[in-house]
């Protein structure tokens, strides 16, 4: 339970507060429109659909304000940097920005649906009222505005039109249709399938949000939601006059009621975030124009490209990531990569696998330049970053258990290198005495560079006689009988046949119970930090093992599971 509160407490709190504000806004505006006396005649024409349209509109205002904020990543970095003295949980919260962005987007989608349906009903009923299909009061109300000196209530002035025509000839109608269409496109292209496989479609279509916000700001400019003016309510007693619509203007108690439209309010909500977002994009552009020196490019086996770069005033921490842009491939695309170098080094590096269009093009460009022996000039890459919460906790534990799955092993390259540098310099910040590293992957294809890193660390540790500092186990979960046969034939060799490392490769999944048991026996009085970069299911397993093998007695071994967000 304690673990849950530490890991999830702040997220839960933020969600509750956000939902609470949404509910409050909805109920407040619903009651405002449903009970407000100035809307009495409007409600007569529209019924409850008035409140059902205006309440979601208010919630939409709030959420459209929120949706731009989580994607201002430079702003978030700034906040993260400035609350270094705050608790880490606050900074970790900022890493969940995209989840929050999606949640707010779902709410916008839902509220748009409710708002649109309510307005469809509104338009139909307004049109019917104008054509005299309903009672006398409705007809009378709809006719107000036909003569001069009258301010209309029913925005549909022509008695022989259709709701479709009205929708496409009013500002509110046409902007509404356009922004709803944009929203639908944005949502369908953001589905997980499209986003993961065809990133460019997602990225370019998402820029329809510009049209969305432009339309949103002008959506209320037509002022078609009408209410009775204050002066009119003073002169025209609604309770008495509502039963005598045909006498209006003829008796002194009931002069013709005057109406006015509500001023557009959306711009007040969204102007601030829009300005912030424009600053964000300008800042990204500025940072991208800074010179990046491409110190070295290395092509590793399995077509993995390593880029070693330098940039002025660039300082990184372990576990952070950068965005790369290559103008010669695509002007607008920025792709994130976790950094694989340690902060102690004088350059920063990323390892890029050939996964999609952009990465493939980049690797082929580098190959081409290497082949032609022309330099891949420094104008060719732009870098934005670093982003992400640093994983400094790794250095705080006496014993660390690091578990990396598949591609999740990448941040651990940075961490392991940094730990090794700190160890060599006897850095005071490093309290770690022993590291257990578990590397789980289906196959080592595309990770040979990591095996090389382990190999070199192994060599250095052997030189200093410190082979005990780091113990690592590689688990190949995708073995089959041909693997088994190969290993059987070669098991007498000193080094592992698959990786060439001293420690042999294991097959299948690790037996976590046994691992935790062994670590507990080896370090009976230590605090062990467990770090995972991998799938959630494994996270649950590790969390439960931590709970089970931790001792209540603080002098004995305790395991802390850190839900890191690499």
């Amino acid at each position, binding site marked *: 339970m304690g673990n849950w509160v530490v890991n999830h407490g702040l997220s839960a709190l933020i969600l509750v507060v956000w939902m609470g504000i949404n509910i409050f806004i909805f109920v407040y505006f619903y009651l405002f429109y449903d009970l407000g006396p100035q809307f009495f005649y409007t409600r007569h024409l529209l019924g409850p659909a008035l409140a059902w349209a205006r309440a979601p509109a208010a919630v939409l205002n709030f959420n459209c304000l929120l949706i731009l904020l989580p994607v201002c990543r430079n702003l978030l970095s700034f906040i993260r940097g400035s609350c270094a003295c705050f608790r880490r949980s606050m900074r970790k919260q900022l890493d969940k920005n995209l989840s929050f962005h999606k949640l707010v987007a779902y709410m916008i989608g839902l509220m748009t*649906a409710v708002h*649109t*349906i309510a307005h*469809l*009903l509104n*338009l*139909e009923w307004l049109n*019917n009222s104008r054509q005299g299909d309903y009672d006398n009061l409705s007809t009378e109300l709809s006719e107000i505005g036909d003569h001069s000196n009258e301010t209309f209530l029913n925005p549909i002035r022509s008695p022989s039109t*259709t*709701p*479709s025509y009205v*929708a496409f000839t009013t500002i509110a109608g046409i902007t509404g*249709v356009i922004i*709803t*269409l944009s929203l*639908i*496109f944005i*949502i*369908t*292209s953001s*589905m997980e*399938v*499209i986003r993961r*496989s*065809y990133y*460019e*479609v997602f990225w370019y279509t998402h820029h329809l949000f510009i049209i969305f916000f432009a339309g949103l700001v002008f959506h209320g400019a037509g002022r078609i939601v009408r209410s009775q003016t204050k002066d009119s309510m003073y002169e025209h007693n609604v309770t008495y006059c509502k039963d005598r619509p045909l006498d209006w203007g003829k008796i002194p108690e009931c002069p013709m009621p005057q109406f006015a439209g509500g001023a557009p309010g959306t711009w007040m909500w969204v102007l601030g975030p829009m300005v912030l977002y424009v600053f964000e994009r300008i800042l990204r552009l500025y940072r991208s124009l800074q010179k990046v020196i491409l110190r070295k490019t290395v092509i590793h086996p399995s077509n993995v490209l390593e880029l070693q770069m330098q940039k002025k005033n660039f300082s990184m921490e372990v576990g952070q990531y950068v965005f790369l842009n290559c103008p010669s491939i695509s002007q607008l695309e920025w792709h994130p990569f976790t950094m694989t170098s340690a902060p102690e080094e004088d350059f920063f590096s990323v390892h890029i696998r050939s996964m*999609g*269009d952009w990465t493939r093009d980049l690797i082929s460009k580098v190959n081409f330049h290497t082949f032609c022996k022309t330099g891949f000039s420094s104008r060719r890459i732009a870098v934005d970053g670093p982003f992400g919460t640093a994983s400094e906790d790794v250095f705080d534990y006496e014993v660390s258990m690091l578990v990396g799955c598949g591609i999740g092993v990448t941040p651990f390259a940075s961490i392991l290198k940094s730990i090794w540098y700190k160890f060599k310099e006897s850095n005071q910040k490093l309290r770690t005495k022993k590291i257990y590293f578990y590397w789980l992957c289906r196959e080592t294809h595309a990770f040979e560079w990591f095996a090389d890193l382990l190999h070199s660390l192994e060599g250095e540790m052997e030189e200093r006689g410190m082979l005990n500092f780091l113990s690592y186990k590689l688990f190949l979960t995708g073995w*089959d*009988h*041909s693997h*088994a*046969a190969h*290993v*059987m*034939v070669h*098991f*007498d060799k000193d080094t592992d046949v698959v990786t060439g490392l001293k420690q*042999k490769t*294991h*097959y*299948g999944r690790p037996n976590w119970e046994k691992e935790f048991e062994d670590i507990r026996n080896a370090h009976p009085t230590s605090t062990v930090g467990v770090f995972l970069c991998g799938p959630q299911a494994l996270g649950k397993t590790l969390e439960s093992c931590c709970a089970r093998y931790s001792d209540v007695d603080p002098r004995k071994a305790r395991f802390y599971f850190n839900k890191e967000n690499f």
Partner: protein
Amino acid sequence: MGQIEWAMWANEQALAAGLILLTGGIVGVAGQFKDWQFAAYGIDGESLIDICLLEYPRGKRKNKGTSIDRMGQRYLTICVKAFGPLTRNYFVRAGLHAVLSIPGGFMLPTVLGCVCVAIASLIYLLAAIRGEQWEPIMPQVESKQRPGESMKEPPSNPPPRPPRRAPEETARGCCICQPHSHLCQLCLRAPPRGQCDQGFAQSNNCCRL
């Protein structure tokens, strides 16, 4: 954008459009709008049967290995597959959606659905021009792999080989010379000490796990 399969996006768009048309139709009928017959058409004739059922089964991706199917789409896949070239060809789908979207344009609640379906039809047209086709995702049958015959090592001793041991004495085999016996996950044999029949040297642990 070379690797894009437009059909994947067209599929998402068409499914969403079908649902929007359905919602519009329900609003039209429930609100007793004028021209509600068009709305009724929107609900029964078009969105439910053709678009939602036709689009629900996701097609197989051509380029990449993993195709993620939607929950419970297996049965619909069989139905859709049964229509053969009518459903496989995206030109047909593009035309079908274009034609079916027209009645939605006659009343306001279904107009949005109509426009979305029309756009989905355009994206399908683009997919068809690029030569894409709908392939069903069929459940894969796992083939039981028999261990290869080559795992048996050739005998290292020239003939004449030592005589066969009596059956009550446990054969001193090891994981190399006698594969697929019991116990160990990898070598499937309890690790004996010393030497085995065929002369392979044994260590303490046959396979380190």
